[in-house]
């Protein structure tokens, strides 16, 4: 199998079809969240939009997320006077059904039930407000950073990724970032990768991925990364520099492994997908485990 074929097989394994259990569950939860927010803000003017990897086409099995965008219309104050009020009110409404983890601008939903406590539901709710009646640009509240308000445009971000021409490489690089736990936001990692591959859209997958990795590994200084939705107003340099040393170390390590042992050493084989086989192998593996450590709940 060539490197191209191997990487394509890895991508195929990471692809979730519409009828997959993961996406069915995600759609059900999305409907639940929308219902919860409609109940919390009856009669108010807002729109739901969908972002994240689902909208951009970069979804991978090992990290799939739905960004459920909750944008209040520019002239609506019933969901909160300020962006911070909107953010807090949405968090409070979601708290009635979920454990809510507050992020810089988004609200991550986790399980709060007895059997699902702390379990990730792969949904970020992003509260914001349209800047005007055109409903294109919007403002988001920021809980950290120098500015408490961020201006952005969801459609620009989605189109920037969907139209980049190197989606497969972007997805593989996402997988590498996830597997190696490289501590940089996916949004920024994606922008860096797309920038690095701008002149190499016709190259094969193995070459594209290596080019993007070397663009970080071999760089003397962090690159200038622009937010396509707000290049002048949204400064990403801090987020890049914070993760720069880890990014360099991780990408160098991956390149070293590719050079020494090939791509299979970096991404490994695909997991067994047949549930019956997997279940049987798990049972065999458990039976073959001699003197396992006895788990202990310390609390």
């Amino acid at each position, binding site marked *: 199998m060539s490197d191209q074929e191997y990487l394509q097989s890895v991508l195929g394994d990471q692809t979730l079809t519409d009828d997959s259990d993961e996406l069915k569950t995600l759609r059900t939860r999305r409907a639940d969240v929308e219902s919860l927010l409609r109940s919390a803000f009856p009669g108010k003017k807002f729109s739901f939009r969908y972002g994240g990897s689902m909208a951009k086409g970069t979804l991978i099995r*090992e990290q799939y997320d739905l960004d459920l965008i909750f944008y209040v219309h520019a002239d609506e104050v019933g969901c909160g006077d300020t962006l911070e009020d909107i953010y807090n009110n949405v968090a409070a409404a979601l708290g009635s059904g979920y454990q809510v983890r507050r992020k810089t601008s988004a609200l991550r939903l*986790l*399980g709060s039930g*007895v*059997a*699902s*406590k*702390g*379990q*990730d539901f792969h949904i970020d709710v992003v509260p914001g407000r349209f800047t005007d009646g055109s409903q294109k640009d919007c403002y988001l509240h920021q809980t950290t950073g120098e500015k408490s308000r961020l201006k952005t445009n969801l459609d620009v971000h989605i189109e920037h990724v969907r139209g980049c021409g190197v989606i497969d490489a972007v997805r593989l690089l996402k997988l590498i970032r*996830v*597997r*190696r*736990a490289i501590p940089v936001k996916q949004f920024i990692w994606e922008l860096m990768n797309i920038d690095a591959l701008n002149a190499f859209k016709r190259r094969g997958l193995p070459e594209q991925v290596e080019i993007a990795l070397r663009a970080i590994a071999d760089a003397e200084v962090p690159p200038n990364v622009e937010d396509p939705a707000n290049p002048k107003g949204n400064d990403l340099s801090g987020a890049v520099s914070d993760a720069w040393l*880890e990014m360099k*170390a*991780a990408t160098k*390590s991956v390149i070293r*492994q590719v050079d020494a*042992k090939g791509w299979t*050493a*970096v*991404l*490994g*084989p*695909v*997991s*067994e997908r047949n549930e019956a*086989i*997997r*279940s049987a*192998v*798990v*049972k*065999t*593996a*458990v039976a*073959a*485990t001699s*003197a*396992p*450590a*006895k*788990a*202990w*709940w*310390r*609390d």
Partner: protein
Amino acid sequence: MLDDLRADIEAALDDKYCELRHTAFNGHEVVVGSFPIWHENVLIDRFQIEISLGETYPTIPPTLVETGNRIPRIDERHNSDRGACLFVPIEWMMRRPNLKFLTFLDGPVREYFLAQKYYEQNGEWPFSSRSHGEAGRREALCDLAGIQVQNWSALSDILEGPEPKGHWRCPCGNGKRLRTCHGREISELFRRLSKFSSLEREALGCPTSNASFLSRRV
């Protein structure tokens, strides 16, 4: 010593776990990334993890956190906000004298995630486990000493005092002297524990030595 630790970690990752990455955070060695579960050349699944090796490693075992939030933070899944409930620390330290990092990955870490897969499929934990909290700690120490847990108090008295003597009554309660009963196991446990500082013993959940304890039962 730090160089030896780092070399040990790198050797483990190079050998079998190349999807894990070694880094440092707040002065501690940390291993992050994707942990694969294999059996007989079949890749069962992967979990995102973070393993922290504190300043007192290997005296105090590493801590493991499943960072992908796939596993609920509940006691049935032996998973809490403070991480995976792998073992009573002192029990693992005593039973696994080879403290290579690879041993930790191949042993408790793999067993933990294999058990999680089994739980997902069958709704029950496949391996035996300890009671929660202090009761579990006592079970572990009594097991190491080879005695029943209802004799914990007598064992605790011995472990907190000076070096046990062969003529003392065995804490198992059958009336024999240590030298003809569980003396070997208890002396070994005492000897291993005495190498830890008070703080380490406290962190491991063991009785701390009591230098002022004088009276011994005969």
